[in-house]
């Protein structure tokens, strides 16, 4: 009965996703489409949660629904809220789309069943990771162990990708300059409610950062949550104040520092005759070395993500202010 119920929820959520996509394609109002994509991300997060992928759901809710929506709204202020009405229906486009869709559906036929224990994902290295997490790393959250230790190279790559995204936005748009005259109007209700909530958001971000070994969360989610506190501050109190709290000039340095912390952690183990990112070199006891390595690496990721997210937000709104 319970399994059937979960399946029912999954099917409903998937149907909901399809519905949202169709409406988002049909609407010509880009504002509505942006909001629909925010809802899409939330429903995806629910789907991940239902599939017991809590860390992924957390990331999707923080990045997909939260930060991306804010970013798209900032972009909409540059482009205007309406799609060009001129539509060209080409038969070639339809043909390509139908062909791609057919190929994808054909590919789905080869997928293993959901929850199949003999699926390639489960027989390759996953069981090894789950066993070795207990022995060598000794933290409850296997996802963090895989992300920060077993697949440390991949996560390093992801951090560099995020850093380079920030650099690209900085090169294209620049930081901008915000005059204090563009302040949002004073709103006492928002001020009173938002002030304590910013503190709560920042504490929650720190909790997610340092509790990632034990529960859902980690550097990526924490960085976005921490940055969203500052974004909220700049939306309610005005961006020139936010730029006084976190000056725009230090953000690129922080982002680079985050990537450097990650890379230097790997370099330390390389210098003490271990492989790159082998954390057992960091301490005489290999297990506590792993703990320390994961802590360092996660804080590097958190710092890089936080400063990149805030940097992109500053760039977009800086351009908006100067228009």
């Amino acid at each position, binding site marked *: 009965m319970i399994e059937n119920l979960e399946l029912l929820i999954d099917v409903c959520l998937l149907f909901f996703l399809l519905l949202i996509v169709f409406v988002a394609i049909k609407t010509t109002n880009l504002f509505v489409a942006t909001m629909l994509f925010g809802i899409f991300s939330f429903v995806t997060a629910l789907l991940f949660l239902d599939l017991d992928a809590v860390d992924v759901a957390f990331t999707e809710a923080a990045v997909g629904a939260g930060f991306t929506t804010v970013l798209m709204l900032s972009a909409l202020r540059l482009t205007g809220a309406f799609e060009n009405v001129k539509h060209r229906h080409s038969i070639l486009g339809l043909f390509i789309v139908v062909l791609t869709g057919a190929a994808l559906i054909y590919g789905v036929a080869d997928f293993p069943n959901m929850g199949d224990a003999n699926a390639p994902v489960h027989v390759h290295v996953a069981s090894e990771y789950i066993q070795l997490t207990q022995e060598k790393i000794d933290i409850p959250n296997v996802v963090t162990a895989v992300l920060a230790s077993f697949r440390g190279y991949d996560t390093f790559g992801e951090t560099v990708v995020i850093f380079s995204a920030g650099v690209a936005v900085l090169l294209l748009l620049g930081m901008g300059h915000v005059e204090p005259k563009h302040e949002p109007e004073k709103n006492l*209700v*928002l001020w009173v*409610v938002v002030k304590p*909530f910013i503190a709560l958001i920042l504490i929650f971000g720190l909790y997610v950062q340092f509790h990632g070994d034990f529960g859902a969360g980690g550097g990526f989610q924490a960085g976005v949550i921490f940055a969203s506190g500052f974004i909220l501050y700049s939306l309610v109190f005005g961006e020139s104040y936010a730029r006084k709290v976190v000056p725009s000039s230090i953000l690129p340095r922080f982002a680079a520092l985050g990537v450097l912390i990650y890379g230097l952690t790997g370099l330390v183990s390389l210098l003490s005759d271990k492989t790159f990112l082998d954390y057992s070199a960091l301490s005489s006891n290999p297990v506590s070395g792993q703990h320390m390595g994961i802590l360092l690496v996660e804080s590097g990721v958190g710092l890089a993500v936080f400063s990149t997210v805030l940097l992109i937000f500053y760039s977009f709104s800086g351009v908006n202010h100067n228009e």
Partner: protein
Amino acid sequence: MMINSMLSDICLLLGGIFTLTGAIGLLRLPDFYSRLHAASVTESLAAPLLIIGVMLDTGFTLDSAKLILIIVVMVIVNPTITHALCRAAAHGGITPKMQSESTQKNKLQTETEFSSKEPK
């Protein structure tokens, strides 16, 4: 235990009813502000009721404490968001559909005058 499960049923039922009325209001009410009102009922009344219903059913654990925190956050944040949305809408020039009968009559009269004048 009996009382708990009964109370939880009542809470869940009430929460369901408020969700339904909120959804109907969101679809059927005429203008932005009244729709916002309907939506905020769902957020600040139905959702806490549903959470309390679930909490009573499962008994008090550490998770219930977290759920209570979520209720507190919802009850504070949702009216604030509704307020901010309302202000933004008023700032953006959306007027409520709240014309009294006399103004409507005047408008109708002017419209008919215009339409009758135009053919000449």
